[in-house]
């Protein structure tokens, strides 16, 4: 799980063009890092590509922080393994 935490953090950092150590996983990415909604979709696309998971459209509204992204990714990966 720790691995996913770090990977998602690195992916978010790469897409929003920051250093991974600058990312606080509990910070609101839209407010703190000035990520707009379109860049938010770009992050989901990055997760989809990396883990081959299908993130449903309605999950977009649930995402506020990197921790939310980690949770959604973990849930979808567990479902995939079942």
């Amino acid at each position, binding site marked *: 799980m720790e691995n996913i935490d770090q990977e998602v953090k690195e992916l978010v950092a790469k*897409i929003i063009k920051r250093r991974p150590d600058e990312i606080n996983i509990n910070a609101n990415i839209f407010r703190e890092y000035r990520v*707009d*909604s*379109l*860049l938010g*979709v*770009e992050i*989901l*696309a*990055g997760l*989809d*590509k990396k883990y081959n998971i299908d993130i449903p*459209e309605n999950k*977009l*509204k649930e995402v506020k922080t990197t921790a939310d992204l980690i949770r959604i990714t973990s849930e979808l990966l567990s479902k995939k393994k079942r």
Partner: protein
Amino acid sequence: MDESTSKYWRKYLRIDEPIDQTFLKNFHSLNSILNPPFFFIIDMLSRSYFSAEAHGLENIPDPPYIIAPNHCSSMDQTMVTWAIGRTRRKELYTLTTKFFFDNPFARFFMKIGANVVRIDTEEDFMSALQAACKVIKLGKSIYINPEGTRSETGELLPFRPGVGVVAVETGAPIVPVYIDGTIKALPPGSLFPMPHKVRIYFDRPIRAGDLVKEQRSERAYDVYKAVTDELYERVKVLKEKVSR
């Protein structure tokens, strides 16, 4: 542009899904009854009271296309739809924020003058983009304010990249438009227009496909942003030419 990221956008935008042909009926104006007398009055006012002029109408391509003007007055949309003429007006759908659409008084007046699509850019931006793409996929054109809100000073506000997404993913050309004089004729907060000259300039269309080829970014976002930036520059140049 990264193919997989674009695929993801297309999935969210539902670009490749079939569209219910009755979708547009929800947004039609009160065309047959009130629209002709409304534009008869607007036409008289535009020519006499505002000495309005439209330039570059020959730059408007065949539909579908995206009309993207600056925005600083509540009369902007009416002036642009007056300028493009009756035939084009009937094929044009204006994207309007819920703030105006949910006000029955404002909605009534908007629907006299135009086909109006309600969007919620703050809470549900993806539905707004989906609606814009659907209209275009049905062969109609859209009117969108890329600034997202009115400029209180007449200076251009930053353009939001949603217009770039719609242009890239549907292939519809964007017509940059600069509206001059409406901020003096009907500034924000005013109820009655003043007799001030209004000029509307239509520039050559931006074809997003050409810009997409030039972009080498991994992020689709950068491509959408590049198209939006090009639009901003073109409107800015029109503004500077007019202001000289």
